[in-house]
């Protein structure tokens, strides 16, 4: 326990707010970062926020070589909806998501960052590789696939007779690996319990409706911009078969199936995740640093 005589026990993560126009709207976006070196921009899952990457930002093996940056998408975490948008139904689209990521890279003046996204963030990484690969040093998709079969009706996520936070957390609880430590499972689910009404559902509009990328990922150049896809074996939403099928259509894409990990590798089992992600970051640093 710290006392008045000891130094504060700070973590290396620093949080700030950034004013950035996105899609013609004024947004105030919350950003956390740690480390120095190659910019590594991290994209959280649907209905969650940048806290999912807190362990990565406290890992000196990563932050000694990478400037790890994570932001809360507008509507998520500590980023409010865009100014004046509170009454609007939130729906994430492919075009809007790409525009948001590119706006953040521009506003932060990131020089060919590595982008690593999970779930919806993994799906959009595929679109970035397809349409904007030259802007990135490398791309990492966690729990990423061009399409997945739906497994529930998203109408349950936002209706007055079912508690939104409770049902969102209960649904995704099955996507975590049983082996993941309880503390990290609880933290991962807590974000779903805290998410704004309809936000998770709005993200899934992108996932379920707007971003079926099957057959539309041609022309990805993995020599210019390497593409790594890592999926947990306990993820039945984006199952390893979904990622393997996707990778089979992208020459040069590198796939890893992570054992005893589910849909939230970086937050549900950070110790296990680093065993898989450190070699990927090593390779990127070695070949594209």
């Amino acid at each position, binding site marked *: 326990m710290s006392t008045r005589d000891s130094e504060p026990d700070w973590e290396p993560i620093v949080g700030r707010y950034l004013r950035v126009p996105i899609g013609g709207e004024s947004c105030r976006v919350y950003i956390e970062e740690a480390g120095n070196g190659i910019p590594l921009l991290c994209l959280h899952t649907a209905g969650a926020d940048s806290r999912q990457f807190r362990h990565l930002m406290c890992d000196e093996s990563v932050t000694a070589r990478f400037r790890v940056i994570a932001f809360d998408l507008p509507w998520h975490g500590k980023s409010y909806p865009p100014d004046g948008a509170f009454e609007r139904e939130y729906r994430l689209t492919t075009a809007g998501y790409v525009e948001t990521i590119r706006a953040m890279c521009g506003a932060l003046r990131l020089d060919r960052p590595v982008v690593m996204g999970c779930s919806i963030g993994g799906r959009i990484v595929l679109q970035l590789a397809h349409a904007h690969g030259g802007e990135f040093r490398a791309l990492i998709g966690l729990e990423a696939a061009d399409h997945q079969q739906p*497994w529930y009706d998203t109408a349950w996520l936002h209706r007055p007779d*079912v508690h939104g936070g409770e049902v969102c957390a209960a649904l995704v609880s099955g*996507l975590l690996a049983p082996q993941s430590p309880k503390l990290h499972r609880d933290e991962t689910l807590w974000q779903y319990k805290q998410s704004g009404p309809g936000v998770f559902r709005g993200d899934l509009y992108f996932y379920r409706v707007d971003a079926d990328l099957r057959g539309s990922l041609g022309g990805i150049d993995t020599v210019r911009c390497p593409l790594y896809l890592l999926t947990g074996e306990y993820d*039945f939403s984006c199952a390893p078969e979904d990622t393997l099928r996707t990778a089979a259509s992208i020459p040069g894409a590198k796939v890893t199936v992570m054992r005893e990990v589910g849909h939230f590798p970086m937050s549900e089992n950070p110790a296990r995740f680093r065993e898989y992600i450190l070699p990927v970051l090593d390779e990127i640093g070695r070949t594209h640093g």
Partner: protein
Amino acid sequence: MSESWQESASPDDEAVSRLRAALETFAANDAATARGRWWSGRCMVGVGNRRLLVEVVRGVPTLSELAAPLSSWDFAIVGSVRAWNALWQDPPPPGWHDLFALAKRGEMRIEGALQPFMAHLQYVKDMLSAPRHGRRRS
């Protein structure tokens, strides 16, 4: 396996016995039932060919045979014996570790009036996964 199969319990019966014992332990655990304290209702559980009724009163479940015709229930969760047994393994195999994972692979059906199921989803999932932890605690 015994050659006198007629004298041994069927896989269905063994699975039901395991569920029954786990729910008795679950019902006596205040921490386990607390999450369901706002719900009273009836859930039909199918285990292979067996049909059972889980009646929940303020979070405390009681398991019985669904013997009478036209018995009513709010929602039903029906799975193969191998689905339930896989769900109850510790740890369960990937893709067999959650009610929705099993439904997605066609090993389980979730039917009926689903509002109470979704409104109390974590409670129902915990209750029906209770046999996974029964052997470890005993």
